[in-house]
């Protein structure tokens, strides 16, 4: 008997009393009618609690805000699908600081390691827990680019913000590689006190954009 067959047969005999489970009661909150202004306020509060830096701007101010956040970076990586308009001020034509990660021409790990920052968009955000979800599509890139550089600048369009996790899951394609980010990397391993900044990006700047 293969290991699989044997384990399945052990399970079958373990369940010979044929336990029946009650249906799953889903009485918890699954929808919310929180107005947009309050959603933004809640998300900002949660992100700042995690020690992320947050800007809330109109779409007209986005390019300038990105430029401001990236001004100290000697180099930064962008995914191939990033909206070029966003970079009009941070990386005008031929800005030597910009490194683009493209399928077929990916940046190697040493190159990512020597890059100061990364700029990505995001797929969906959950205000109540201060969580931003990246799904690896063109304007977010493969997982390594938002992991290895030490400074992550992340754009959150207001239309992608929901209040509750149950509202966010239907917006996620579960078979894509997903990364849920709630603040910069942190640890509570020494005396259970939270310290921000270990292996993931130590600096997280979030730009919430109205009108996007």
């Amino acid at each position, binding site marked *: 008997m293969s290991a699989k067959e044997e*384990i399945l047969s052990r399970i079958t005999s373990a*369940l010979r009393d044929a336990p029946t489970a009650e249906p799953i009661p889903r009485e*918890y909150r699954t929808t919310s009618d929180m107005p947009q202004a309050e959603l933004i306020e809640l998300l900002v509060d949660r992100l700042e609690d995690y020690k992320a830096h947050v800007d809330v701007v109109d779409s007209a101010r986005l390019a300038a805000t990105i430029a401001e956040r990236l001004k100290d970076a000697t180099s930064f990586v962008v995914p191939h699908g990033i909206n070029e308009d966003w970079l009009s001020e941070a990386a005008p034509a031929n800005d030597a600081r910009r490194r683009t990660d493209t399928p077929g021409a990916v940046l190697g790990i040493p190159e990512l390691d020597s890059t100061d920052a990364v700029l990505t968009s995001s797929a969906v955000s959950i205000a109540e827990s201060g969580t931003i979800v990246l799904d690896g599509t063109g304007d977010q890139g493969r997982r390594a680019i938002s992991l290895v550089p030490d400074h992550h600048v992340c754009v959150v369009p207001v239309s992608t913000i929901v209040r509750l996790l149950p509202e966010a*899951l239907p917006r996620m394609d*579960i078979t894509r590689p997903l990364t849920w980010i709630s603040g*910069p990397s942190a640890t509570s*391993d020494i005396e*259970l006190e939270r310290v921000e900044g*270990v292996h993931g990006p130590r600096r997280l700047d979030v730009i919430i954009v109205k009108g996007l």
Partner: protein
Amino acid sequence: MSGVFMGMPSLPVFGDGNLHIDEPFPAAAHRELGNTQMRANLRHATHTIRDKRLKVVGELPDWEELRDAGAATKNQVMANLPALLEEFEKNFTARGGIIHWARDADEANRIVSDLIKEQETTEVVKVKSMATQEIGLNEYLEEQGISAFETDLAELIVQLGHDKPSHILVPAIHKNRTEVRDIFLAEMPNVDPNLTDEPRLLAMAAREHLRRKFLSAKVAVSGANFALADSGTLAVVESEGNGRMCLTLPETLITVMGIEKLLPAKEDLEVFMQLLPRSSTGERMNPYTSLWTGVTEGDGPQNVHLVMLDNGRTAALADKYGRTALNCIRCSACMNVCPVYERTGGHAYGSTYPGPIGAILSPLLTGIKSEENSSLPYASSLCGACYDACPVKINIPEILVHLRGEDVDSRRETKKLPSQMDLMMKGAQWAFSSGKNLGLLEKGLPLGKLAAGREKKIKRLPGIAAGWTQSRDIPAPPAQSFRDWWKKDHQPAAATTEQEK
């Protein structure tokens, strides 16, 4: 190893590995209680996390509804386990992942070791995993000439300190910052000799130490918090980014996961990803959660394996009173609220799984008769704080009592002569069966008073009752029983006066 009945699947097949306590809990606890530094560290840490947890749980108006949904979901998973496992395997495999099944710790270790050797490397990076701790993977790999580097800060502290984990979420909870600094100074190559004990600087030292390993590793080993049957998706929940490093950068990823970790569908995450972070670190959400489904071309490991582990889980499933212990999502809330754990620490429980959940899970996985694991269900005052804190409502006190019963029954099977406990219970049965019998027994009370002597305290009881007086005295019994007193005090007035003379 004990109780293995190969080829006879109708009998439970128990697990092995790091699941045993090798001395009885009372002896281990007694030794650990002497470590006052550890007790101070634990008190500080468990109280910090308790307060944080209560705060973030209190924020959610539907916490109890989430717990109800979590408990019911896990009960459904256990009832439908064979179908869900098949469904998961089909979906994970369709997306390019490779599944291996392991009956026990030894088989799992061999599978992982062979997969690493195929990649022609002798080093792997590891993200914290209870399953690999349980099967003793690091020790096995070391015998095979493979170095496994733990990358979670607390696991690193434990590994560098040649120590054992004492908590499932914060394995170095028994060490304070100064002790951590001393371990780093002694064991970490190229560490700054002026390192202070500030937690931020200690975390930075760990970052420096592990960065090269992450960037150059060819193989990573992980556990998994959840597996979604309807999509074949795996999830790892973490804080530091060491998980993301392991799950993203190496070409080969080997995940070891117990068969009970399944969830039926994507929407179940909406329950469990609210329950788990708030219960474990007391945060609204943990900093990073990674989800992956088999292989994604051009993103992350291209060689993705999963080892599905039994190692006693099917034996626990066969115990209809104990099987809900498998619903555990390893949040550690039960440890943080347990008055016994807070004082003895995790090492006293011997097994990979300490605290209240360990006191039921370890004997369920290994069988109650295995080594000293029968002492674990007694490591509790049955106060019920663990049940209240459990996000999936495992009734730990009830299972503790059930396992105590199993233990007593198994001893009766093996011993011909009745034990002291049997005799006491027989005696109690006789005494409480009639008022006359009890009255007869109560005539002995003055003898107790005599034994107590002038200090009016009994300092040591005989036999198994000695445990009661180990750390407390019993006040001298009264000269007469309540029943005697009542009888005399409630006589007709004339007679009472007579008596009082």
